[in-house]
């Protein structure tokens, strides 16, 4: 996995040609995932992607692309075909994604703010740190006493109760795979905020003794509000947010459909694929310990964007990524259509 993407210094290139119009191609090093699609697409073979260097676990800097400025004719194909928009191509300062004649991928990642409960699970799960969820908590009323219970089968571990509890009595672990909720009854002050704010009504709580009179708050006020933001520059439309969202507020449309196969006989469990995968779609089997030789590499196909970065990086050619469908906006140019269709091979 590529870490701290925003911290990697941008060492991209910048090519310009100004005559009838100003054409400019620039490269965002920190966005590039090293999949090599541009190398295969470039009609003048001006692009080369270097072979992957030695892997330092969790700190891999994937091989970046080189461009021969003398060969490049500034046609913009690499920019149009890059699945993660690491190449910016502008004509007279207008990005080609905004020029209708140029085809572009049909893909999106959106969070519906009306449905979102601002639990921040997607923010934690996003492999590219592209999601930011802000939440605002309601005012807390005076405190009372009573009893409280959580239906663990219903609880989705969104963490809203944890966040809102004025007495810090609830502890929710939201790490995917290790979800847990613990309520410290000694600390609980039975304010019922957790019960009222729970989006799935998993908490049953009652205020047994109420010596403070007006303890309850209006359920309307107990709703968490907030805002969501997806950084389109970093988002690769992998689908983690959609998969992890407890209320189906996140929707992801991928640009490629396809298959990902790992030849378990060839795999040497070196972990290279896991490190280059931009969307955490590959993992070691859960049984693996750090000191044991694990069996094989597992794949999580629902998160795969079929970019082919792992196939390129695998030192023993154990991985095969096949794109079966590409979704892009129509264009009249046959050569551009040909390049988009060629991705399927």
């Amino acid at each position, binding site marked *: 996995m590529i870490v701290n993407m925003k911290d990697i210094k941008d060492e991209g290139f910048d090519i310009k*040609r100004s*005559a*009838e*119009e100003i*054409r400019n191609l620039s490269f965002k090093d920190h966005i590039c995932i090293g999949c090599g699609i541009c190398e295969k697409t470039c*009609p*003048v073979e001006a692009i080369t992607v270097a072979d992957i260097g030695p892997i330092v676990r969790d700190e891999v800097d994937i091989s970046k692309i080189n461009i021969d400025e003398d060969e490049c*004719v*500034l*046609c*913009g*194909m690499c920019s149009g075909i890059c699945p993660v928009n690491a190449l910016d191509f502008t004509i007279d300062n207008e990005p080609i994604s905004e020029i209708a*004649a*140029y085809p572009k991928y049909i893909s999106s990642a959106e969070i519906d703010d009306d449905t979102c409960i601002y639990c921040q699970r997607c923010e934690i799960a996003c492999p590219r740190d592209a999601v930011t969820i802000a939440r605002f908590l309601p005012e807390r009323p005076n405190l009372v006493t009573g009893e409280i219970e959580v239906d663990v089968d219903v609880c989705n571990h969104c963490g809203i109760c944890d966040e809102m509890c004025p007495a810090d009595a609830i502890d929710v672990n939201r790490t995917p795979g290790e979800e847990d909720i613990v309520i410290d009854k000694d600390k609980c002050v039975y304010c019922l905020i957790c019960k009222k704010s729970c989006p799935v009504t998993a908490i049953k709580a009652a205020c047994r003794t109420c010596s403070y009179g007006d303890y309850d708050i209006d359920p309307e006020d107990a709703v968490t509000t907030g805002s969501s933001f997806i950084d389109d520059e970093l988002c690769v439309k992998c689908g983690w947010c959609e998969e992890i969202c407890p209320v189906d507020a996140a929707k992801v449309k991928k640009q490629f459909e396809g298959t990902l196969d790992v030849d378990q006989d060839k795999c040497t469990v070196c972990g290279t694929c896991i490190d280059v995968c931009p969307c955490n779609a590959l993992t070691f089997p859960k049984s693996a310990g750090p000191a044991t030789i694990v069996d094989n590499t597992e794949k999580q196909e629902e998160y795969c964007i079929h970019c082919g970065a792992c196939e390129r990086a695998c030192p023993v050619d154990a991985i095969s990524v096949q794109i079966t469908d590409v979704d892009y906006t129509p*264009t*009249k*140019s*046959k*050569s*551009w259509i040909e390049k988009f269709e060629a991705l399927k091979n």
Partner: protein
Amino acid sequence: MPSHIASGLKYLAAIELKKHGFTQQMIANELEIDRSTVSHYLNGRNLSWHSIDVAKTITNLCPKDFLIMTHYLFKDEQKTRKIVSICKKKKYCGEIADSCIGCGLCVDLCLMKAVNLDSLKAHINSIYCCGCLLCEEGCPTNSIKILEVNNDREYERH
């Protein structure tokens, strides 16, 4: 000397326009010269016939040499375009193959401004094309073919 040859080319252009029924005033406007100069040209005065011979030789060179020579003599793209489009001997049309990627290199290379891009594909305007083949030579995907049109050309006013 180069300016004399440039005048020779203007003379040839004036004669060519006269053949197509342009009046002296129209010729003067077209070539951006004085009407009196046009009058001198058309009456065979004021020019060395030697320069005109050299100019004639230039117009008979292959289209690329004719264009580059003229551009060098006038050092002005617009005037070059005018002289070449009047004095060129043949009409040309361009065929663009589907392999065109829309890089626009041909648009930048064309001195005659005969090429434009439409829907990521180059188009060549035969009215302006002088057959120099600069675009064909520069095309990274070899998608351009310039063909001679087999008929007598007439200079058209735009």
